[in-house]
């Protein structure tokens, strides 16, 4: 069985697939979608800290805070 985890717990440098996004905010979910962050899409961590991380979504790099990076479930 494939392991699912929050983006913040993922390994740096490894490419994962987005499994679930639930920010409890429909507008935010839709916004992430438009950036190319939705289930089935690849996502890679470039670096992570305690409260934030930098992730590659499509061809862009984004800084995400802990609330968002815990709402994005990857596997």
């Amino acid at each position, binding site marked *: 069985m494939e392991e699912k985890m929050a983006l913040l717990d993922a390994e740096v*440098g490894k*490419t994962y697939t987005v499994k679930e996004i639930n*920010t*409890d*905010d*429909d*507008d*935010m979910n*839709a*916004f*992430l*979608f*438009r*950036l*190319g962050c*939705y289930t089935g899409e*690849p996502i*890679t961590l*470039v*670096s992570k*800290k*305690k*409260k*934030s991380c*930098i992730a*590659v*979504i*499509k*061809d*862009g*790099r*984004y*800084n*995400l*805070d802990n*609330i*968002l990076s815990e709402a994005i479930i990857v596997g």
Partner: protein
Amino acid sequence: MRIAFAGNPNSGKTTMYNALTGRSEKVGNWGGVTVGSKEFKLKKEYAGNKEVIAVDLPGAYSMSPFTPEEGITSEYVRTANPDAIVNIVDATNLSRSLFFTTQLLELGIPVVVALNKTDINEKEGTKIDTAKLSAKLNCPVFETVSTENKGLSEMIATAISLAGTLQEAPYLQADIDLHDKNAVDAEDRKRYDFVNKIVAAVEKRKVLSAESTAQDKVDTVLTNPIAGILAFAAVMWFVFWVSQAWLGPLVADWLVGWIEMFQEWVAGQLENSPAILSALLADGIVGGVGAVVGFLPLVMVMYFLIALLEDCGYMARVSAVMDPIFKRVGLSGKSVIPVVIGTGCGIPAIMACRTIRDERERRATTMLTTFIPCGAKIPVIALFAGAFFNGAGWVSTVSYFLGLALIFLGALMIKGITGYKYRKSFFIMELPKWKAPSLKFAFKSMMERAKAYIIKAATIILICNTVVQVMQTFDWHFQVVEEGAENTSILASIASPFAILLIPLGFGVWQLAAAAITGFIAKENVVGTLAVVYALTNFIDVEELEMTGGANTVAMTMGLTSVTALAYLFFNLYTPPCFAAIGAMNSEMKSRGWLWGAIGLQMATGYTIAFLVNQFGTLITEGHFAAGFVPGAIAVACFVIAIIMIGKRVRAHFDEQYELHKKTKAAVTTAA
């Protein structure tokens, strides 16, 4: 004919717009610099004989808006019927950008795609087959580099020639119920699948996006909570030091020499005219305006350096590293951008708050951002640092850091007053690729500012100084005030009542009160008015004054101690900004209550800080409290009580709303 410029944030729309129209709208290497639409006609070389208006729109990721600025864009292209759309596509992020492109192509308006930033692709070895892309999208595609004016004339000529034709869409959204969330989601997914297929067919990358690069290593350090904040502090300290302690004053020294020569020349020309005229012209107008213009180099150097910071991509990193701290006090990482812009001018800073999504965070940032001393306050800081503290650099450093501290404290207070509302504050910020800042661009931005500063000095400040000069020369019977009877002048009698309020702060004389009041028209006026009321011009070359006068003339004339001077400086820095900035606050906050709250808070803060500095400073230096301790303490206590009362009322109102909501809910349940 109108051509709209639309595309993702930070794709280079405004840079292209500036190149095509010759304007100099604000640009920067982060998403969300443009917060409203702007229009201007194209240069003749691009438009030919036609009258073509270019419309620059805020960046948007799609037609369904997430932030208010995105809404402006989708609303415009949908309802304003532009004759053509130039869709600026960030060529380094084709896979994301084309989502919006395919939506624009559905509108029926002819679209021309400008594949921008192709220079970066060349460097990274990414190849995009433009002919194939054009065929797949069913619209012309041009490679452009807007920072170098490359490919623009062909692209815009095509857009002009296509105006009025009908665009055929390569992809049409199925007829679905737009209220059905799942159906919309499914359609958006299909659109992305369509885009992904195009990208796979036209793009070849040498460096995969997910690979870690040298830039990522830099970003990892700069967004680290400790190293990143230290780096930010160091960068800002360097900016202030160069502009206000090293290069700025160096140039200013030289400029002031010229201004003095000019003033002497004017005085010489007026030798045979009535004394009153010479006083008005030479001392009042040339002296007062000259005192303000003398500080211009400091402001220019500052603008140059801030422009470099905005251009290289650092702002997004600062915003990212500061987010956790700002969140703790109830603001957002995006609040940092207004704060940094605010070191230049408060008005664009207040406007930059628009990109903050949460209303409370946005209003709080708008309210607090002007605590950071703006460019117009630099002359005031430099004057006091020079005259009272021997030009010490710490005065300016303390002014900025105290401003930052006040933002934090103010934010905490607003959080307390508005009640803790549970709302997740998300932070996501694109980190754009680093770019070598353009010296040409920074120079242009600096000259723009210099022009605005000189115009301001020649209009508002000139008028204010003239009025001040006239008001202090005459009394209410329009008789020239005699020497020794200065207190009978119009200015003195108007400013004196205000001066009484300032006694607890240590500067209760009408001259200083008048200068602080004129400061609300424009903060440079503080310097101009002081120059006029004390008949001083040379504020910068204090060393020379010391040599000639044997003592620090400026400090002596004003009769302030270093403690009261500092109190007066802080009072001018942290009371409300100029009227223009208050106007900007009004239009951004869209709420009377918040606006008056902001003005009241700023007034109370300036007063309290000056009171504390004066009273405790005097206690330390002289061993006793300064005059007016008790009335001042009562005033400060009133502020505190007022804030507590407002907080109680706001929270009670909030609870009431919540209560009501609960009642209706209960009623609904019972009915069911």
